[in-house]
């Protein structure tokens, strides 16, 4: 589905140029569940931003479903992000003044046509992440894990082909990490969604079928784990929560 060839990215700030990616060839097949890992400065976020059309490569080719997208206009990229991609970020990036449901509906605001059943689809997305009881709560009234699940619901409400997650568990405790990973695994397994996530947490990497490691802007290894960890099993193995015990 995604085909990166010879992708380079060089940040130029004043006279100093900082190379972030030095010729990356990477394919993502439909239904992949991949973690992009590597030490900080390895370019793992940059690769994901380029795949998510949030950033443009300095050089190289990017075919999305066989279509070259490096030459598209900003508006063309925005439309592709809106219709084919979902995003989850480390610090959630929810609108603090809007309810969970309104946050989830945000992508529809920028759809070519605001769907008539938008609200129904928003409810379904929130139900899919187990937050059907939090529709009208604002981010400030939700826990970190719940916020990230709202963000996941926002990423999947438009039914995209691929979900990009940038350190989705970076700000979460263990239990919330498993909850979010369980949702992503289920979306991948049951709905065939491609999931690409960036993480520096090896444990999270173990829950992904494929792990791509970057070092200094180059791919160091690309491995497939035959038996990734199942987040639901890990969640079940956790000791019960305080409030559950009571």
């Amino acid at each position: 589905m995604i085909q990166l060839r010879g992708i380079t990215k060089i940040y130029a700030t004043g006279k100093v140029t900082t190379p972030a990616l030095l010729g990356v060839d990477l394919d993502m097949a439909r239904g992949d569940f991949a973690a992009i890992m590597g030490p900080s400065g390895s370019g793992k976020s940059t690769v994901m931003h380029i795949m998510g059309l949030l950033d443009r490569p300095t050089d190289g080719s990017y075919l999305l479903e066989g279509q070259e997208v490096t030459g598209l206009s900003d508006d063309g990229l925005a439309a592709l992000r809106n219709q084919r991609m979902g995003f989850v970020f480390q610090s959630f990036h929810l609108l603090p003044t809007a309810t969970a449901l309104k946050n989830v509906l945000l992508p529809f605001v920028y759809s070519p046509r605001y769907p008539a059943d938008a609200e129904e689809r928003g409810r379904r997305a929130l139900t899919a992440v187990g937050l059907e009881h939090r529709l009208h709560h604002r981010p400030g009234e939700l826990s970190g894990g719940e916020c990230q699940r709202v963000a996941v619901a926002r990423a999947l409400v438009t039914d995209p082909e691929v979900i990009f997650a940038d350190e989705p568990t970076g700000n979460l405790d263990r239990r919330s990490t498993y909850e979010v990973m369980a949702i992503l695994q289920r979306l991948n397994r049951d709905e065939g969604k491609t999931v690409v996530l960036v993480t520096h947490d090896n444990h999270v990497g173990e829950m992904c079928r494929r792990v791509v490691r970057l070092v200094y802007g180059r791919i160091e290894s690309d491995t497939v784990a035959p038996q990734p960890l199942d987040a639901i099993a890990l969640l079940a193995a956790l000791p019960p929560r305080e409030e559950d015990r009571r």
Partner: protein
Amino acid sequence: MNRLWRMAVQALRSLWAERGYAALMMIGLVIGISSVTVIYEMGEGVRSQVVSMMSSMGFGADAFFVASGNRRAGFRRGGAARVLTDKDLSEISRLVNVDLVVPQLSISRDRVSAGARHTITGISGVDIHYAASRRWDIAQGRFLVEADNRDKRRVAVLGASTAQELFPEGSPLGRPIRIGTSPFLVVGVLAAKGFAPSGHDRDDRVLVPLSTAQRRLSKEDKFTAARVNLVDTGQVSETVEEVREILRANHRLGPEVPDDFTIVTPDSILQMVTRQSQAMVAMLTFIATVSLFVSGIVIMNIMLVAVSERAHEIGVRRAVGATRRDVMAQILMESLLVALLGGLCGLGLGMLLSRGIGAGLGLPVAFSLPGFGLSFLFSAGVGLIFGVFPARRAANLEPVECLR
């Protein structure tokens, strides 16, 4: 439309979330727009008072006055040639744009007596159209009629005060009076109009037929003033010039000699009133302009701060599919709405203020549509113009940078 509406709702929600900022952005506009509103409402009030005063003088937009004499040039009324002649008026009445010339003859104040009682009052020789054109109602009897003028009858119509003065008891109708030494018969009494804003009693007057006044009182075939009714009110100034040429030629005024007559148009009266209040208007306009400009700068700076504070939000919106134009439109919509809200508050405050001032000073106040429109346009303009820079900055942010 639907999209615009959703954008407006979103913008209002953001503004509400940042109500402290929003209030700060609105203060300048509230001050600016309320000053503009006060200016316009007070101005409109004075103007409408002048217009109603003029229309009570029979002075609509369809006519102007020609009076003999020119006080500013030192020509008193009535002197040797400082009068309007039959020739003057008939030439004026032949102008294409002139519908009707209603002449009038004011006699200097004279003694009017009835039996043992007497008073000193102004006497006018007038046309039969006089009462209608100057909105005088008849309280008793009748007004002058065509036959009065044709036959130079010695009949008189009294103003209410004059009638009260001469005939404190009983009806004056049919009773004899003397103007100077000439005997007249009272045929009617005008309804009271009260005092003019200048303080003179509008009911203190005696009206007689124009022809009788010329024959018996002034003893000349001349007039002191005329009302010129127009066909096309769009050509007032052209017609005024033609009348001026006729009168200057007839009065044999050399090129250096000033007019010995005065032409009063509705515009010239309005201009006089306007000129008087111009100093105040200029000052308030200055305040308004400065505060609008300042509020524009305030809006721009606060929006710039808001844009950098909300970089994450902008980044997320871009990530889920907002184009640069969408982001720009959102920020513009917010600054437009905050400015319009400020303008609306200013309008309300201004209307309250001008009514308060009006009641306190006894000045009239009227709702001014142009003032309303101007406030609306000004606030929208301030919002849009000063929103452009922050909106462009927001639109030019790169999504990746926003999401860091």
